[in-house]
């Protein structure tokens, strides 16, 4: 048991948690009856994916992906005397976190809030039309509509 934890869980702790959060979200999307609860679940489900991506880009001992100004200025000074072609050498990639997942997840966050907004608008319309935001009651009222038409 302990070796399992040491080998499988500890090095991948973030990934385990992401699966758990994701499953909590997915479960409530399917099982919750209240529409707003479903949407909160959906948001949590989406943030779990963000957690996966951001965890991918983490490097031990690395700093944020904003280059150090002073280093840059010094390197560009020294290069201007030496000539071009060596600019990349001044930057050690291991010192900076991987920026690409961050970019992707900025997009995903924005998509998430956009979806949430549309979903909340639909929830309000459903409430206006059916007077409830519980899914089973809504479905019951829809059945009644069916009989009318």
């Amino acid at each position, binding site marked *: 048991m302990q070796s399992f934890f040491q080998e499988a869980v500890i090095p991948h702790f973030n990934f385990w948690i992401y699966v758990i959060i994701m499953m909590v979200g997915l479960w409530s999307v399917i099982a919750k009856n209240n529409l707003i609860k479903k949407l909160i679940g959906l948001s949590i489900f989406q943030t779990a994916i963000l957690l996966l991506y951001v965890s991918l880009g983490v490097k031990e001992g690395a700093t944020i992906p904003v280059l150090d100004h002073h280093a840059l200025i010094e390197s560009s000074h020294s290069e201007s005397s030496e000539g071009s072609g060596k600019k990349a050498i001044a930057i050690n990639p291991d010192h900076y976190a991987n920026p690409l997942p961050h970019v992707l997840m900025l997009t995903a966050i924005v998509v998430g809030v956009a979806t949430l907004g549309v979903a909340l608008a639909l929830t309000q319309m*459903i409430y206006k039309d059916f007077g409830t935001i519980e899914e089973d009651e809504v479905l019951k009222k829809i059945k009644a509509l069916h009989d009318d038409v």
Partner: protein
Amino acid sequence: MSDHYPALVLLAPLFGALVIGLFGLRDHRVCLPVVVSALGVSLFAAISLVLSVSSGGPVDYFVAGWKEPIGIGIQLRADAINTPLLVVIAIVALLAAIFSIRPAAERDSEKTPYFYVLFLLLCVGLFGITITADAFNVFVLIEVTALSSYGLVAIGQSKRGKVAAFHYLIMGTVGASFYLLGVGYLYLKLGSLNMQDIHGILASDDALADSRAIRTAFVFILVGIWTKMAFFPLHGWLPNAYSYSPSGSAAILAPLVTKVSVYVMVRMMVSVFGLDRLEANVEWGHFVVWLAIIAIAAGSTMALAQREIKKMLCCLIIAEVGYMVGGAWLGDPQRWGLTGTVYHILADALMTSCLFLAAGIFAKWLGALKLEDLSGLFRKMPLAAAGFVVGGLAIIGVPPTCGFYSKFYLIRGGIESGQWTYVVALLASSLVNAVLFFRIFEIAYFGKKPADSHGDDHGHDHESEPVVRLEPPLHALIPLLVAAALLVLLGLFNGPVVEFIRTGLIETAAVVSTGR
């Protein structure tokens, strides 16, 4: 300018949407000309792309000029698989745009510009998904498509439309998230988002390609895309969303959204994971073909049970998605199944467009929502009925229409790969379609009401007799007839189209797997 057609295809509708947003919200007359001209530009660019692909092979376009090393920028790629689809998207969108001059029901005509903005944004998303060669970019554009379709489904007055849109939103978001998750797994193992790059790495490293994470990635991408295309066990959102949306929305959503998702699946199979890899895992193919057979059976059975026209058509879409998924996974060495699938994407987009346009006409100008309401249709609107008949014949698979040929190629793939159950399911489903449509034709031609026979006897002397022509206005009739004509044309010219697709498919599969 001709170098920029891959970008222009989707920039035209985007700028169209912006123009409507800036000038059309006040003056509704701006909307339609802008929509038609934007889609016209797209159609022109798409046709030019087809021509340049057929003469010079795939066209690559590197957005922002970031070409080397591959994968740092976003690449667009037009090849034989996606250019015909671009043309079909443009055509179907144009037809739907002309059809929906007064889209969001008369009561709410203030929302017309919003309808058109969403309509064009949907087109942007569809074009973008089709042409991009970047796995993450597909996700962003799927969301553009999805959010605009939620709006289009719920824009009408229907109360059920809102609930349908909500369910669509939940399913769609979960599906897109699964896709994103799959792409994340690919990125985690391969460090790249560019489809060609991913394929190159996978093709060169067997151990990596068979690793757990890559398999899981593939499963999640597939499940996500299947949710988006309403593949059978995940189809729950589709019938309500499409049948309770306004006719104008249904005329664009139903033909295109599911088909583009099928295209994404084909794209993932051909130029991300690689056909060789998939064929090495035969049992996966068998499993998916079995799922597809179940989907076909379920779709056809549900269609038989429906009394409403649009619901029935929606169930047929589910069956058709089964055809396409099954066909793509047949894995016959000559690639007839896959070719048939790509051809069927085109054919089915046009068929569904034709049928939904017809259903929209019946709903709007006859008030006919159920099958029985169609009685006497041939006398009331003969031209519209003719268009509907062509659509019906195409979906049954009667020779001069494209439906016959697409099924022919799918069945050929099934025979060559020895998947007899799939062949049987296809034929049985065609039979079910025949039953469904001839039942409708019967109702429409002979009618069931005593009043009709009465009218026949006495000719046209009574005012009250329903012999009056109710032919819909031209803006609705012309798209329907054009769609019907295209069905026949695509059928007649199936040879060159299929040859184009098949050589392109074989080339893509071969080139990429030896690449790098």
